[in-house]
C-alpha cells in the first residue's frame, strides 16, 4: 500500500486513495481505447446491485418444491432449468443443483477464489470470500455448520462441493415441514440465501 498522505494539512484540495487512483487509471485508459464504456459499466453495476440476488434462487427453489417435473429437470440440467425462469447463466459456467435430503446435506464453497452462482444468488457475502470459510469448509464442514447454528445429525452425510470457474452449485434445501398448502410466492419467502449455499437448514427440516 502507498504511504498515507496527510491530507488534513491541505483541506482545500481533493484527495483520492491509492486504490481509487488505480481504478480511475484503469477505467480511463480502457475508455480512451474504446475497450470499456461508462454506460455499459453503469448497467452492469445496476444489475448486480439491484436486479440479481438471492430472491432469484429462492424462486427456483420454490418452483422445484411445487412442481416435480421442474424439480426433476432442475436436478438433471440445472443450467437450462434455471435459464427457463429468466436467470441466464453468466461467465459460461454450468449450474449444478444439489438436493438436500433426510440423509444428505450439501454445502458449497470455492476454495480457490470465490466462484459463486451470481445469476441466482447475486454476489457472495464477505464470509464466503474469506480464507477461514474457504479453508475450513472442506476440512471441517460440520464445525463450520455449527458456527452457522446448524447441528447436523451424525447419520446425515455432509457433502462439500468445491466450485470452479466452469461449474457453480446451488443447493436445493429441503422443503420445511408445515409448509403444505403455501403457494409458490410464500414458499420463496422461506428460502434463505445461506440455505442455498448450504450453511443453513430451513426451520422445520430434519435436525
Amino acid at each position, binding site marked *: 500500500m502507498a504511504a498515507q498522505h496527510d491530507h488534513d494539512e491541505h483541506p482545500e484540495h*481533493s484527495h483520492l486513495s491509492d486504490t481509487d487512483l488505480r481504478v480511475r487509471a484503469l477505467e480511463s485508459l480502457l475508455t480512451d481505447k474504446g475497450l470499456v464504456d461508462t454506460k455499459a459499466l453503469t448497467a452492469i453495476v445496476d444489475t448486480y*446491485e439491484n436486479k440479481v440476488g438471492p430472491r432469484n434462487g429462492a424462486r427456483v427453489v420454490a418452483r422445484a418444491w411445487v412442481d416435480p417435473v421442474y424439480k426433476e429437470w432442475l436436478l438433471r440440467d440445472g443450467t437450462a432449468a434455471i435459464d427457463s425462469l429468466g436467470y441466464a447463466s453468466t461467465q459460461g459456467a454450468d449450474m449444478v443443483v444439489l438436493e438436500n435430503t433426510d440423509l444428505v446435506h450439501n454445502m458449497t464453497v470455492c476454495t480457490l477464489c470465490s*466462484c459463486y452462482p451470481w445469476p441466482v444468488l447475486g454476489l457472495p457475502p464477505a464470509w464466503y470470500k474469506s480464507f477461514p470459510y474457504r479453508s*475450513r469448509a472442506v476440512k471441517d464442514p460440520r464445525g463450520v455448520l*455449527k*458456527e452457522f447454528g446448524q447441528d447436523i445429525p451424525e447419520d446425515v452425510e455432509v457433502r462439500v462441493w468445491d466450485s470452479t470457474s466452469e461449474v457453480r452449485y446451488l443447493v436445493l434445501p429441503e422443503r420445511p415441514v408445515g409448509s403444505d398448502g403455501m403457494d409458490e410466492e410464500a414458499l420463496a419467502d422461506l428460502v434463505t440465501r445461506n440455505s442455498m449455499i448450504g450453511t443453513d437448514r430451513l426451520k422445520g427440516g430434519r435436525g
Partner: protein
Amino acid sequence: MTADVNVPTEEQLPSLPRDEDGPVFDEPWQAQAFAMTVWLHEQGHFTWPEWADHLGAEIAAAVGAGDPDLGDTYYLHWLKALETLVAEKGLTTADALAERKEAWDRAAHATPHGQPIVLPTDA
C-alpha cells in the same frame, strides 16, 4: 481438523466473518473494478477460467504474504488480478497505468474540495 463441540461464542465469530444481505459493494471503486472485469470478459478479451486463475493466484499470494483474508480485502485482490490480466492481454501496460495514476493524483490535488475531479485532456 477441529472438534467444535461447544456452542459458538462471540469470540469465535471473527474467525468466520458473517454478514447479512448487506451492500454488495462497500465502495464505488469495487463496483467499477467488478464491472470492468465482467464487461471485458463479455467482450471476449479473456475467458472466465483465465480470470479465475488470476484472481485465485492473487488471493493465494496475499494469503502467503500474511493477509488474514477475511473477505474485506477481496476486491483489492480482484483489482490486482485485473491490472495484471489486462497488461498480459496487451490492453494496456503497467507503465501506462502508473503514469495515468499519477495524472489522476495530480488532478485530485489541483481540484478544490467538493468539485468533480477531471483529468486534464493532455494527461
